[in-house]
């Protein structure tokens, strides 16, 4: 029984902490999607670049990857703006297919630039003040401080983005552009600049998420695709364009990915290895994909029915 509770608690805390970061990844996607109604296939690659930004800050200066957060935010912002002016601006004139393939091309491009520069090996941060320290939550439940800090900082970043989108003039202008670009233009909002800003903010958000994710996940050039899919699933779950939806959905996705660990705990409870199928661990992302599929088919407005 104790073993069950312990394992369960571990799985749930791991899921929730990771979920906070997932929420942030999805937030970046939803900002862009909400304003422009465009799907960015390279979203995971933005994340990957954020991760590398965090990694380089950490290794070059010997700091904790958490200090890479502002660097990753700036890099992400610049990347978002650059992609908008260099590519997305042109894609918007074409049909939906063009957006899909254009951003897919961007994904391949960024991935291979990373491969060329950084090499194919997975890397993670091994040094720093907080690395290796852990925090004892209860008997047997140990959380690494870096992960806890990453979760906390995601919340902070989330709060910041929420404040930007809901409380500042820029955020309101972005929302106006999202609701009706033409009307916004008549009101004197420079919609073209707003679009680029949405890409910048989306890039900054996901860049920050990358720096934080580095505490859970090693970085390699191919890491992006999985997170692109996770981000789509999260955004679908929370409702396209909804900020608070992304936060809650991120937590749910974090828990979904930890279903196999929970199952392990459950099988401990009802006795033995018979149920402890390692097989389930291979399906952990399938739960996320299935969630996307089912939500889109049965509840296209998102799990909570929030309006876009």
């Amino acid at each position: 029984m104790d073993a069950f509770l312990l394992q369960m608690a571990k799985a749930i805390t791991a899921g929730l902490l990771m979920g906070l970061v997932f929420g942030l990844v999805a937030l970046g996607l939803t900002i862009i999607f909400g304003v422009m109604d465009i799907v960015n296939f390279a979203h995971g690659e933005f994340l990957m670049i954020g991760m590398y930004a965090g990694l380089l800050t950490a290794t070059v200066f010997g700091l904790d990857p958490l200090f890479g957060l502002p660097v990753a935010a700036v890099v992400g912002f610049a990347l978002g703006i650059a992609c908008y002016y260099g590519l997305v601006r042109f894609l918007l004139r074409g049909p939906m297919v063009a957006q899909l393939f254009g951003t897919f091309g961007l994904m391949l491009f960024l991935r291979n630039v990373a491969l060329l520069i950084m090499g194919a090996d997975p890397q993670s941060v091994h040094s720093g003040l907080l690395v290796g320290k852990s925090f004892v939550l209860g008997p047997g439940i140990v959380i690494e401080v870096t992960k806890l800090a990453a979760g906390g900082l995601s919340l902070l970043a989330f709060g910041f983005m929420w404040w930007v989108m809901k409380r500042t003039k820029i955020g309101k202008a972005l929302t106006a552009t999202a609701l009706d670009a033409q009307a916004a233009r008549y009101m004197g909002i420079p919609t073209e600049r707003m679009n680029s800003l949405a890409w910048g903010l989306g890039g900054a958000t996901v860049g920050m998420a990358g720096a934080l994710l580095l505490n859970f996940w090693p970085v390699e050039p191919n890491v992006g695709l999985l997170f692109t899919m996770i981000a789509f699933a999260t955004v679908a779950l929370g409702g396209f364009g909804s900020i608070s939806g992304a936060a809650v959905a991120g937590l749910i996705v974090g828990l979904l990915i930890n279903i196999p660990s929970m199952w392990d705990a459950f099988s401990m409870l009802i006795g033995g290895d018979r149920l402890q199928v390692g097989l389930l661990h291979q399906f952990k992302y399938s739960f996320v994909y299935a969630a996307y599929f089912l939500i889109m088919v049965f509840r296209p407005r998102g799990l909570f029915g929030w309006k876009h």
Partner: protein
Amino acid sequence: MEALRQAFDFSDFPRTDLCVAVAVAVFLFVFPALPHSSFAMATMIQFLMFSVYGMGWNTIGGYGGQVDLGKAQYVGIGAYTTAVMQIRWDLPFWVSLPIGMSLAVGWSFIIGYPLFRLRGHYFAIATIATSLILKDVFESWSFIGGARGLKIPLRAEMPDFWFLQFREDYYYYYVILAFFFVGLIYLNWFRQSRIGMQLRCIKDNEEMARSLGIDSHWAKIKAYAVATAFVAAVGSFHACYNFNIEPEDVMSLDLSVLIALMAMLGGAGSLWGPIIGAAILVPMKNYLGAWFGAKAGLIGLDLIIYSTIIMAIAAFEPRGIWGIVTRIRQSRSD
């Protein structure tokens, strides 16, 4: 009978198209007789495979306008059916081919029904999701070899036409060339057929299509099944040609996107589009990869060039190369 005549009716194409098509067909027939490297032969076989993949994708993605990014799951079903049936029950290719196609089509109906309740981006992403789920299933299913995949044992006697095992590549070449021509003729029928035109109408304006008596949901499912049959057939061929199949090879997202990309690059919704796309992308990918990867040691540079071209096409001519050709023709005739 009328359908057969229609399948061979190319009369609505301009003469230049037909001349080029005949020249290309002749070249394809005599290619194995020309001097060539084995790398060139492999590239040609891949070109033909991707042309047929692209033709299949074109039915739903091009004529129907539904961007399907999950075709790899059907490549997997076809390839695995052939491999498993050969390894476990010693059944030849020509038996497992129709079975694999039927299984794939059956699966496409099951997931097509909910899939086509979605539109646009949401549909495209959902196709990726279904494909990746099936890949996860295949990777953990030990009966079919799991993540390590399957290896088809070599037969004692070669060439074996029943099991499609040959020592020389040109046998494979002519088999896939036959698939290519059957596919092309079928597609020529399809584009002029009732279902083909209904699909194009749906792509044009779905609301209007429905008010003209077209059950658009069902029409899309049917076209999706046709696309699936094409892709699964080439998947079966792939198993015999490669001997070795694993989920990462035949079911990856990269393959799904590549299939769609070739058709798009050449010109989605046109008969020649997928062929043109494959003729450009396959050699480019292979040769760039060989030059930069092996010789210069610059891993990734080939795909950087490749992706730059994709972005440029998407940004400036989303109708693909065939779109450029039509535009030039229109400006000449005006």
